[in-house]
């Protein structure tokens, strides 16, 4: 009898473990589906971005065609500002200061996709599970919960449209179950016809009247003199490059760390050309920003969608590997 009970218990345990693993895989597949939908679907809609007690409403348009990936974001509250993306070029329009900021990445395909390797890593550091169904902006959507396994990352709640997988709601939650930021569609048209002029900015940028700020980026993998000695568990370096930034005399080193879901960037620049003032920690929605000086000659800015402890640990263990080890 005892043996039977033992076997039954063991089978049940294995069974539920398999079930759990299966559920997690299923939930992770939804994330892949969401990434694919964001890239491939034609859609437009209006969403609200809540952070702290501030609510900003924006319109978004997305088109995927033979020429690639195109999107436009229009801020509806406050002064009109827009972002236009065409494949790997992003243009930010600030009509108040008549500035267009252009950011272009060279040597990469389209904007970041969630590769399968990343997806499987998410399961190591987050408890991922599918929730029930919800309804957002008139569409039925599938809830997906990601609960962090430690205090180095934030939790997430996503709601993906049940047919296409397009994310209609994203929440970032801290360890006290408080919402750091939330992006929710209040109306969306999936599969709508998108005219090319919906992707054009509202402002006509007259050269001479508008200041065009270009930042050319040259990517050299492993090409910086910097390293992070003790990143928090799971945060692996996924990118490293030097950026030539307008207004800075020397290139800025940029390192990116990620646990598969959250990413933290480290920017190191020579102190003389830095426009950032005193060191400290600040926050914008789910993004925490930590700035510190490194030695006497450099300023580091660490930012990402992770708790303050994470950006600070990455920033504090930043070392200058290019020169002698004694340099902090």
């Amino acid at each position, binding site marked *: 009898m005892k043996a039977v009970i033992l076997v039954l218990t063991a089978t049940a345990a294995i069974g539920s473990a398999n079930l759990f693993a299966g559920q997690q895989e299923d939930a992770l597949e939804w994330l892949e589906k*969401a*990434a694919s939908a*964001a890239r491939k679907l034609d859609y437009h809609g209006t*969403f*609200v971005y*809540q952070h*702290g*007690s*501030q*609510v*900003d409403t*924006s319109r*978004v348009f*997305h088109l995927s065609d033979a020429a690639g990936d195109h*999107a436009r*974001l229009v*801020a509806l*509250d*406050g002064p009109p500002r827009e*972002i236009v*993306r065409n494949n790997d070029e992003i243009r*930010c329009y*600030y009509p*108040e*200061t008549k500035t267009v900021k252009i*950011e272009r990445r060279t040597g990469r395909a389209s*904007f*970041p996709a969630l590769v399968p390797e*990343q997806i499987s890593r998410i399961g190591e550091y987050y408890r991922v599970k599918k929730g029930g169904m919800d309804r957002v902006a008139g569409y039925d959507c599938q809830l997906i919960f990601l609960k962090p396994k430690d205090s180095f990352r934030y*939790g997430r*709640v996503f709601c993906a449209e049940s047919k296409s997988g397009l*994310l209609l709601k*994203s*929440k970032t939650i*801290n360890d*006290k179950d*408080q919402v*750091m930021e939330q*992006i929710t569609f*209040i*109306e969306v048209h999936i599969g709508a016809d998108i005219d090319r002029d919906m992707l054009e900015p509202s402002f006509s940028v007259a050269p001479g009247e508008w200041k065009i700020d270009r930042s050319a*980026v040259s990517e050299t993998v492993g090409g910086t003199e910097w390293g992070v000695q003790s990143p928090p568990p799971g945060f692996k370096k*996924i990118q490293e490059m030097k*950026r030539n930034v307008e207004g800075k005399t020397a290139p800025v080193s940029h390192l*990116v760390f990620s646990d598969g*879901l*959250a*990413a933290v*960037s480290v920017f190191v620049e020579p102190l003389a050309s830095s*426009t950032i*003032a005193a060191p*400290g*920690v*600040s*926050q*914008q929605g789910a*993004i925490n*920003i930590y700035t510190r000086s490194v030695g006497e000659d450099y300023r580091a800015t660490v930012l990402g*969608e992770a708790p*303050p402890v994470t950006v600070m640990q990455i920033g504090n263990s930043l070392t200058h590997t290019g020169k002698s080890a004694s340099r902090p």
Partner: protein
Amino acid sequence: MKSEVSALMDGELDEKTAAALLAQMKQEDELLASWNTFHAISDALHETYLHSPHFREKFRERLAKEPTILAPPPRRSPKPLTYLLSAAASIAAVAFVFWSVQFRDSGPTQLARQETVLKGAPQSVSVNDYLIAHQEFSPSTAMQGVAPYVRTVSLNGADPVR
């Protein structure tokens, strides 16, 4: 008083009045209760479609006529609020407004308390550029498309106080 509280919520008070009101709110439970109420309603409302123009103003008018408190009292005793105002456009730096309210209902609908208050200088436009660069590599951008870039357009150094 209640109207001042809702004006504070909408960022319509000048720095002096806002600071004075906040000091008062730390002392008067009733004022803090109003604050909580307005945020509870605002939070609940933001789950629905906000299509009609001037929704907030219309709602505030209607709310002023209702004497009942719609949200249960906070579970814990009120904690001091932290408050910063955005700088004017002439200053090439941005300060953030962080405040939060604790609600009794569970689940991730509570707005966050920002424990890390801005120390040292406020954000500069340079950090905005870094944010744009960072989002190119974030998996969040992969899943949400261009929407996360709203962080940069809602944070431009040239923004006036709202």
